[in-house]
């Protein structure tokens, strides 16, 4: 069975956080996970490559970007939306 968007996003985040996907909780923030600005840029790149989407993200001011990085849950939701928009 193909992996869900959620599973894949979590795997990408886990890789940046150097932890097991099972240890990533949906409420975790990037700070909780120890992911810095470079790690975030790498994660965004991995998301774009995995799903063939373009993530609206500006590293200058991540909080102001359209891509909601509040926590893992918000990022998964944002990627799911991008994937739907792409197939739609």
């Amino acid at each position, binding site marked *: 069975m193909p992996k869900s968007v959620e599973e894949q996003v979590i795997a990408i985040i886990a890789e940046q956080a150097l932890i097991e996907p099972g240890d990533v909780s949906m409420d975790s923030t990037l700070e909780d996970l120890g992911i810095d*600005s*470079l790690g975030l*840029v790498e994660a*965004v*790149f991995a998301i774009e490559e995995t799903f063939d989407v*373009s993530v609206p*993200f*500006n*590293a*200058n*001011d991540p909080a102001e970007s359209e891509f909601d990085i509040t926590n893992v849950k918000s990022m998964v939701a944002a990627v799911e939306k991008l994937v739907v928009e792409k197939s739609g």
Partner: protein
Amino acid sequence: MKRVVITGQGAISALGQSAEENLTAMREGRNGIGTLEFPNADRLSITIGGQLKTYDPGARFTRQQITLYDVFTQFALIAAEEAVAQSGLVFSDELAADAGVVLGTAGGGLQTQDENYRSVYEDGKNRVHPFVVPRLMNNAAASHVSMVHGLQGPAFTVATACASSNHAMGQAFNLIRTGASKVMLAGGSESMLCFGGIKAWEGLRVMSKDGCRPFSANRNGMVQGEGAAVFVFEEYEHARTRGADILAEVVGFAMTSDASDIVMPNKQGAKRAIAGALRDAGLPGEAIGYINAHGTGTTANDRTECAAVREVFGAHADSLMISSTKSMHGHLIGGTGAVELLACIMALREGVIAPTINYESPDPECDLDVVPNTAREARVEATLSNAFAFGGLNAVLALKRFA
């Protein structure tokens, strides 16, 4: 210690193809940033830059020269020729042995790499032009400048990303100050405006899609430019004896390393470099009337830079002017500090402070006098030029009005 003065300047950027054209544009607060035009630009998400649209290599160089010169070398040669002509120097055999060149660049012959990778990977060719290596090497510009002008003393290239030019000019300053050289051509050159160059920067996601707005609350990233500036640094007695027109005196230089993060700026490193340049110059903070900011237009740089300036200057931070000319010519990366030194010399010599254009709304974290949008007349005795590079490498130069 010898005194060091500047006796010639030359420049080429999106603002113009001579130092005077660049200065005129800075006085007028003109925007040199526009739509990028080169092969595959349609595949970029960043489509703006300070590109030299009317530059014609064929009008400046022979076909044989172009075969050997990457664009970054062409820019350096054009700027150097103008600077040497203004200085009136003739490099006799004796002087040539005591004269050199030190230039900054980050990408070197990136256009040459881009074209030739395209040729072997995309076009599937198995043979490249014989001069690919001498074109792309980072020291090509410095070497060709030394050959054209017969400079036989110290000649080398400095690569410290966005601080390359300032580091280069700092080396030139110290070589003359310590008596190791009498004349140094110093500055920097960059030409990264090609598909591979911009695509690489896109990856970092710090580029603006719509404009360079340093210090403005609505800034959203940097915009790249291209070009070069070269100055004639000369030992003061040598310049005085031959009756040279002295544009400004170089009085201080300091460099520091943040030793912290490969891309995020650090207030302490910036602060130590600014304070170090003042100390090296023997100037009190109150002497500085104008600072040419690094002012990239990224959230992090501008905020950090303003905080560092406040900490070094205290109450005087509210009296001095600080502007980012990157708003007009874009970020020339390894060449940027050189083009920006023009604004420092203009402030000292002409009493005209180049503005920060595209300034739209105040940011409480950048609450200094950024000379918004229009140039200003002001008498200035001493200036600083800041450069804070990726990799945490900082270099600040101090210049004084020559009187």
